[in-house]
């Protein structure tokens, strides 16, 4: 914790905010998208928007792994969990994401399914060792940050010949989603932003190169930033300076964690165990090509989707829900027609209201 205090020093944060205010041009309008849910949460928790000039606006991106999990994958998780031999392990806030008919893993658990919350893949492996008579399925979600841990778990299960362990892979990839949101596609117009605050921990894995298209092709500055308030504000200042200088570059504010080449060892593990899926459904963004990972054929025996053939049908988002526009940075959470009325953290209609990293939940909770 001590190492963090310097990035939370109140004096330093106020000075940085003042520096931004000095450099911002009152005649211009700045829209910076924070891609990552961790940043969305940090900006809301520390009320950073209120420290900055009014013509500088944070636009929330789709980088909340829980939020973009589509209903059909939740249905898949529920179907797996409802098999009597299965113990389904997953990361915590997955439990509240609504599938079809608003059904959740939390409700499935209340109705008798054996669903367990884990903090790490090692916990799921331990559940498998402790229950040799049951089938333990790790329902894996997350961006490139959590994918290497799933890869390690599968390798470990193979090493130990842990025949009752498998994973249901829902890992998604950052660059395709960033492209879909920033450049638009057949489903939607581009999010008009002047700069992007790039992901923290994802970048520690994938490095800076995958963002080159944002700067060069889409002519949008991008600064990879840490999650602390001083990190976020420094990244904002770097984006303001790029904007004023007419530069479009990928810069790295988070040098204490992110190296330009990322973590090749972690990527090698991912390459060994996973294979890109031809396409994958994202809540709000639709089907995006090459945007998610499946389990490679060499590890087919550890793939829960192949071990337990379960049929699910695509689930449409709730018709009143405007998560798609929110996830694409085209709508402020409060502008959604069901925000705080039909859709609250108690009974979320859309996934942006589920995780505290979701833009709507952050806006609802922190006002």
């Amino acid at each position, binding site marked *: *914790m001590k190492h*963090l205090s310097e990035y939370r020093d109140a004096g330093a944060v106020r000075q940085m905010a003042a520096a931004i205010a000095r450099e911002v041009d009152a005649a211009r309008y700045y829209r910076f998208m924070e891609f990552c849910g*961790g940043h969305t949460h940090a900006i809301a928790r520390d009320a950073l928007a209120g420290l900055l000039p009014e013509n500088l606006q944070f636009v929330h991106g789709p980088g909340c792994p829980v939020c973009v999990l589509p209903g059909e994958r939740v249905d898949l998780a529920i179907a797996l969990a409802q098999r009597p031999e299965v113990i389904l392990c997953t990361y*915590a806030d997955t439990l509240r994401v609504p599938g079809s008919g608003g059904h959740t893993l939390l409700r499935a658990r209340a109705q008798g399914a054996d669903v367990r*919350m884990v*903090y790490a893949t090692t916990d799921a492996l331990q559940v498998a060792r402790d229950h040799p008579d049951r089938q333990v399925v790790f329902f894996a979600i997350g961006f490139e940050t959590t994918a290497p841990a799933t890869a390690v778990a599968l390798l470990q299960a193979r090493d130990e010949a842990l025949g009752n362990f498998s994973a249901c892979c829902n890992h998604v990839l950052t660059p395709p989603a960033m492209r879909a949101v920033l450049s638009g596609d057949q489903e939607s117009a581009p999010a008009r932003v002047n700069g992007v605050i790039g992901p923290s921990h994802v970048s520690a894995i994938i490095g800076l190169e995958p963002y080159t298209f944002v700067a060069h092709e889409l002519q949008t500055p991008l600064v990879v930033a840490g999650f602390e*308030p001083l990190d976020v504000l420094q990244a904002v200042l770097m984006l303001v300076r790029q904007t004023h200088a007419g530069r479009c570059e990928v810069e790295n504010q988070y040098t204490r964690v992110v190296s330009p080449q990322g973590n090749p060892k972690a990527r090698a593990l991912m390459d060994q165990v996973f294979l890109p899926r031809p396409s994958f459904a994202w809540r709000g963004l639709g089907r995006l090509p090459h945007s998610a990972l499946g389990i490679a054929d060499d590890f087919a025996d550890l793939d829960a989707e192949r071990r337990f053939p379960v049929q699910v049908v695509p689930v449409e988002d709730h018709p009143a829900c405007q998560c798609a526009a929110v996830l694409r940075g085209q709508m402020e959470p409060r502008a959604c027609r069901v925000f705080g009325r039909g859709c609250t*953290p108690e009974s979320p209609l859309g996934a942006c209201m589920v995780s505290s990293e979701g833009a709507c939940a952050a806006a609802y*909770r*922190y006002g």
Partner: protein
Amino acid sequence: MAENTITLAHGSGGRAMSQLIEDLFRCAFDNPWLNQGNDCAVMDSPPGRLVMATDSHVITPLFFPGGDIGSLAVHGTLNDVAMSGGKPISLSVAFILEEGFPLADLERIVRSMADAARQAGVPVVTGDTKVVPRGQADGVYITTTGLGRVSEGVNIAGSRARPGDAILVSGTLGDHGVAILSLRENLQFQTTLESDTAALHELVASMLAAVPDIHCLRDPTRGGLSCCLYELAQQSGVGMIIEEAQLPVREAVAGACELLGLDPLNVANEGKLVAICPGHQAQALLAALHHHPLGREAAIIGQVVEDAHGLVRLKTRYGGMRHVEWLAGEALPRIC
């Protein structure tokens, strides 16, 4: 084997139950009312107003650093009585035991309850035991009820917070919740934290001696400080503003919450209270808190303001303002 565990016979009303009561409960709780051996306790009634509170206790794990379900069951109910400003007089206890529960564990729990009650100076005067078949409960559940007396002139209620009042907490936030989380089977990080479980009625007595006109008292147990403040704000029809920089949170708790994606404001406490008093008496109340061992780390954390919506807001250490999160359900950790 059967001799060392609870069996259905221990709840049957027959000889096994009598023996359990005689050997364990009466011996541990030992007081004239219980020793009469009736199904109830008959006591002289004190003058003035009575306060009564009840609380059921279920917790995993049963034993944790700083306490166990037994001490928790005593402190929890004493604190509910104390939050009225009342002085606790007596406790009752009801156990629901699962068949097969180790007798040694029950003994340990009952002795811990007896110690907690004795330290608090409040006798356990009556009780009940039921045994349910294996699989129909999780070890042991304990319900305690407390009776107390409220002195003349003390008028504490959740509806009495007024704009201009000061908000105080008696010590560091989140210690109990994080100590418990650190023990859950899949979360064995090393911490040196102990649960803060403690009986607060003596602290309350010394606070009332210094500032008789305390408006509100509440213990921020489940749901933590945030839920506690929202309840008071809604009950009183006022708003609240707290200052992040003034909130007492141990570094170990802040660190664990950081790791788990939890907010210390939403984490449970079992030996802390929130007090609301007229603003001009805040310093006197703080001094009284600091004077007591259970209030040494007390702080003035904010003030009551006018707000018809009953919102609780937080001024961040950077000067920004946001709502305090009001938990909808269980606090689930964030991924990332």
